[in-house]
């Protein structure tokens, strides 16, 4: 894997000590008459990767959209980089989103644009000179090992390639927070592993704070137990250390029926005595 990580495009947000990157407080949202999330509270510190687990339809993707301001909650407070986004004007949200990268469930690439224009979309919006944007796109595509597909259109790509382009588009501006919405959903196991390795690489090379939604336990535990070795340029199981070598910056948040049923480390999760969690993990 290429170790070159796209250079940051926007200035990194400096947060005061102790202020989490993402903070949900008593957040609830209802669609029609069905409550989807009920009084959700949690926070994500800088450099942390929070894996959101839970059965289908429990509100994981909704939670990600709330974190990006794409949806507004019915009640509660959501702070991103210490700023309250539930009362923020849409114009200010657009500025804040310059620091947030998002990988959508079905990639959400723009059909009418080729890979280069898709990845460079944000740079073009910022009126970056064409040469500089091209260089940055090539860097981002090298990171996801897809530089050969630069001229292709999304319809010419496989599901896994689309997902990788989507990751390249999300990381091109060097965001301070990345939201992954089921990045391995609908992919075969080998391609899923490739995508998870990219997420891991982004985590361990750039130490970007991230929220990752998945319903594949295998992907979640691979992320928690493996590290990307930048020197060797490959994924490796870390030497046995504290917590059996699991990545300490990776935590889990489990949702069920709109509520939080678990929030903690990998060790705490696997040793949980909660019968529902035990059944879910088995």
């Amino acid at each position, binding site marked *: 894997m290429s170790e070159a990580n796209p250079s940051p495009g926007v200035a990194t947000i400096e947060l005061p000590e102790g202020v989490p990157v993402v903070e949900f407080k008593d957040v609830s949202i209802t669609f029609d008459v069905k409550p989807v999330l009920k009084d959700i509270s949690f926070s994500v510190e800088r450099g942390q990767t929070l894996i959101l687990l839970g059965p289908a339809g429990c509100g994981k993707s909704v939670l990600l959209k709330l974190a990006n301001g794409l949806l507004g909650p019915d009640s509660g407070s959501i702070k991103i980089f210490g700023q309250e986004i539930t009362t923020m004007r849409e114009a200010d949200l*657009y500025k804040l*989103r310059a620091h947030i990268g998002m990988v959508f469930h079905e990639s959400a690439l723009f059909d009418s644009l080729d890979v280069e224009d898709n990845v460079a979309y944000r740079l073009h919006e910022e009126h970056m000179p064409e040469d500089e944007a091209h260089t940055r796109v090539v860097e981002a595509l090298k990171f996801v090992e897809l530089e050969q597909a630069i001229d292709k259109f999304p319809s010419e790509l496989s599901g896994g390639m689309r997902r990788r382009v989507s990751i390249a588009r999300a990381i091109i501006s060097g965001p301070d927070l990345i939201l992954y919405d089921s990045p391995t959903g609908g992919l075969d196991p080998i391609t899923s592993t490739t995508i998870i390795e990219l997420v891991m690489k982004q985590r361990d090379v750039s130490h970007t704070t991230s929220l990752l939604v998945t319903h594949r336990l295998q992907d979640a535990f691979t992320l928690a137990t493996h590290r990307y070795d930048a020197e060797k340029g490959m994924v490796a199981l870390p030497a046995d250390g504290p917590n059996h070598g699991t990545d300490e910056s990776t935590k889990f948040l489990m949702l069920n029926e709109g509520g939080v049923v678990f929030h903690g480390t990998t060790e705490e999760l696997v040793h949980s005595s909660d019968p529902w969690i035990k059944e879910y993990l088995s």
Partner: protein
Amino acid sequence: MALLSPEVWIKQQILAIQEYSILAGTAIADIFTRPHYWADVYTQMDSIGVGSMPIIVLTGFFTGCVLALQSVTALQEFGAVSMTGSLVSLSMVKELGPVLTGLMVSGRNAAGMASELGSMKVTEQIDAMRALGTDPLRKLVAPRLMATVFMLFFLTIVADAFGITGGALVSVYLLGLNGSTYLHDSYRSLAYGDIVQGLTKPLFSGFIIATVGCYFGMKTTGGTQGVGRATTQAVVVSSVFVIIVDLLVTRAMIGIFGS
């Protein structure tokens, strides 16, 4: 389809009117504020204007032909066959040109806008656009609105011209009228108010087609089936409103110009 209580149905309609008004109002405001996506405006102009040219030319031409054929039968009874040119030009410029162009573009482009934006909505491309810091109303709706209003104006002129030409060909080659008389009569019968009336209508029709098409596209839900439903609704609603607004503009113009 599930039956709704009258209360729920009324609430839904009021909500729809509110959402449509916000979309249309924001799109108008976006036209007068920066940034503008001029490349998208030109692309839409090409798609709506140049792309609609063949159907507008054909519709206008054959409508003019039929109008001449039909009117001559009635005019013969009064011995006024020579008035054919006047009747065709007035009908085309004041009414048929703007309305038929509006309906044709509605069928072609309101459907196109609803299906394109609807597909983007259900595949989360609209959300992706917002996540990447772009206002979808500014990027997608405002350019379509500008392009439709601008191009429908000129498409109506093209339809009028081809309608009068079609009427001329039928009058000369099938009905044996004098071509010079036909064209002179056509020109002489058109007053300033007729032209203003005929060219005011496409401005309203263009606004309706673009905003209705984009509205149904942007509120699409329910996958590919939802895209189909949005497309159908966009064509039906925009076509009906083009005709209703045609009536209102006609009445207003009669009030202003007196004929």
